[in-house]
């Protein structure tokens, strides 16, 4: 089937920052994204798990955006401003999408 090149950006970030991140994405013109729940993880700031949380303070989510390649830089700049001082990970990979008119 007909597919189109796109970029898939995956941002793992603290839940408390989610709305700030999606606001920043919107400002950068990115209106399509999907938010996945995260059960736990480990990184430089140690390991954590959702069942160890009494507060929403340290839970995380994963925000996945699929965008046209030419929009990547705008997105990364918008996202970076938010994640910069926070824990979390940003990764980018290539993908192909159906129904490219949606992106």
């Amino acid at each position: 089937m007909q597919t189109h090149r796109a970029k898939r950006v995956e941002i793992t970030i603290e839940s408390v920052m989610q709305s700030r991140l999606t606001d920043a994405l919107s400002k950068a013109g990115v209106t399509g994204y999907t938010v996945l729940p995260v059960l736990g993880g480990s990184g430089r700031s140690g390991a954590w798990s959702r069942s160890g949380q009494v507060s929403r303070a340290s839970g995380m989510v994963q925000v996945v955006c699929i965008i046209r390649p030419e929009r990547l830089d705008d997105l990364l700049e918008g996202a970076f401003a938010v994640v910069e001082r926070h824990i979390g990970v940003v990764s980018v990979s290539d993908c192909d999408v159906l129904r490219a008119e949606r992106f």
Partner: protein
Amino acid sequence: MDQLLSLAGQNLISPIILCFVLGVAASLARSDLSIPEAVAKGLSIYLLFAIGFKGGVSVAAHGIDATLGLALLAGVVLSALLPLVAFALLRVMTQMSRLDAAAVAAHYGSISIVTFVAATSVLDSRGVAYEGYMVAVAAAMEAPAILSALWLVAKGGGDGTKGMDSALLREIMLNGSIVLLVGSFFIGWATGEDGLAEISSFIVSPFKGVLCLFLLDMGLVAGRGLREGGKILRPAVLAFGVLMPLIGSVIGLGFALALGLSNGGMALMMVLSASASYIAVPAAMRVALPEANPSLYLTLSLGVTFPFNLTLGIPLYVAVSQAMTGG
């Protein structure tokens, strides 16, 4: 003193405390016992709703007097003031960085509603009355501490802070616990004894049992925190976690005396001042002071101060308030 010991003893073998201890023990033994996040959140919604509602009903029953407004004000002042005390103490006692010290301090100005709930349940079973509006005071004390702490950082010229923006301010003031507590307080006030009669077999009778399960979960979480974060607590930091609630309770006692609160109200004011936040404040700190170390403040507040207040603090504050009023 005798009375204090017997009260502490009694308190320690109540199902509520033992459930907390079970949770801590299970965690430390690395059992996989856990309460699903959604259920724990459901239990906390129940507790907030019930405690707020009952507070409102009690205000409807006894009417409000002039002290309501003053007590709220006292709460705001206490919440803003206590972080300054905590910060000074931390800088003197420990080698904590300015940023971490401010973040920890914010927690001690704010409050732990479960500690408050546990205290009311001790007062209830001893038949000690307290002002219904104390839950409103609790709500008023949640947020001001955060502003104090951010001010401490800004004053230090900390570029570690993003400061307060309006979005954060709204999030803090309208965080779920505050809204639910205050909202159900007003609902209880508006519907009064009739409203309570309609739902008392939901919010009154099973209350203590729900509190048991919730404290089981708190124990599990606190234990996990201690297991993972315990090593970063140097003795001085640990000492702070026990000393600060005592100091806070004394300051709270002063305010309560000035306000002329009842026996039970005084105990609750001490409890609020002594307790440290582990929900609203950590969330705000992650946004506003992301460089501050979360293990530090979470382990201290949840792993040290919360258990201390629950087991020894509450009976102590109750005994002192009774001694004060000759009760």
